[in-house]
């Protein structure tokens, strides 16, 4: 399968297979007026299978979202067809306005303007909890 290489943009590589689409949605790439490729289940020596997202546009990327979905992913900034920079990814301590609390008893379900905020409570098991009701994300 041939996917054009990009000239100025971002490549999110080493995404755990199956998480590419979720990352695409949470990064709101569907709203972007640019070429975006999601490549699923690419063979990887290290991971067996992986997903890749290529974005052909100079856009700011929310590294917290990537850190939340898959802290093992890598982010490469491409300029003039060359690798300009590799960004390191970490799990964010706080995740603001990315995911929504699903607990119907949570104050976020009625307080319309309230930003949904989750905090990392267990790094080892990647557990995020709503700061208001402590429900697991």
């Amino acid at each position, binding site marked *: 399968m041939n996917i054009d290489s990009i000239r100025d943009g971002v490549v999110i590589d080493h995404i755990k297979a199956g998480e590419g689409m979720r990352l695409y949605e949470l990064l709101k790439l569907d709203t972007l007026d640019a070429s975006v490729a999601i490549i699923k289940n690419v063979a990887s020596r290290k991971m067996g299978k992986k997903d890749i997202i290529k974005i052909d546009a100079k856009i700011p990327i929310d590294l917290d979202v990537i850190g939340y979905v898959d802290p093992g992913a890598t982010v490469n900034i491409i300029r003039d067809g060359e690798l300009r920079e590799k960004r390191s990814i970490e799990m964010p301590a706080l995740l603001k306005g990315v995911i929504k609390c699903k*607990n119907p*008893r*949570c*104050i*976020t*379900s*009625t*307080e*319309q*303007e*309230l930003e949904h905020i989750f905090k990392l*409570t*267990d790094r080892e098991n990647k557990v995020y909890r*709503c*700061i*208001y*009701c*402590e*429900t*697991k994300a």
Partner: protein
Amino acid sequence: MKSIIDIVDLSVAEIEELIAVAQELIVNPGQYAHACAGKKLATLFFEPSTRTRLSFEAAMYELGGQVLSVSSADSSSAAKGESVADTARVISCYADIIAMRHPKEGAALVAAQHATVPVINAGDGGHCHPTQTLADLLTIMREKGTFNGLTVGLCGDLKFGRTVHSLITALSRYSGVKFVLISPEELKLPSYVKRDVLKKNGIEYEQTENLEEALPALDILYMTRVQRERFFNEEDYLRLKDHYVLSVEKLKNAKPDLAVLHPLPRVNEISVAVDSDPRACYFKQVLNGKYMRMALILKLLKEAGTL
């Protein structure tokens, strides 16, 4: 601005300080009779609760302060759709401190984020109720003289019972505490509490469905009510509500210095005949709650620079 949303907002040292002040209030009430003169407590109760609201109000009156009260969501601007954030901003203009109960989990935190005066969480749905835990802790301290080395049985609804989760969290900070978790399968302590609190702190615990077998080893028995309002399904509530009933007969096998606690209100889970047993401490617990609320109001107003 310090607010109290969760019992963990208070350090062990702060809890000891509150207990010391509460003991002082019990011995020398006259010394504090005007401590909050000219100060106002707003009690915003958006969910029915007579006892907690009256406890806060009695606490403020006994400190010489005054009270502004909202006792149901229907009679407040919340009925007109006002947000908790706006309510907190507005009430901050009238009161020096706010005690709030709200059916939604996290509502007190939202209030604290927007209020310009200290906020005390008087219960946010099934989430936290820190002043109940303070009442529990003072009761245990007065009955046992220590938190260390106690075997604490928790019985009934350990799944939705917010007072149970808070008490476990608070007592897990002391050494040698052991928990016996007594509940039907459906109302067992959530696994995240076991993992994040008990296992993380290396606390010994056992789980059982049998109250009679567990009783002889206990220093504290904390009974809870199965709460109708926490169930989406009425059938489940009806099936589980009378699972445990503590009777005089069952208490025969318990230690002579056992302390029986209950956050109240009780329904059927403690037989009325148990009330006259010297081991029944649940009405003392109510009084202790008032003293701890007094101590907490004093502490927060002092820290806010209001006193």
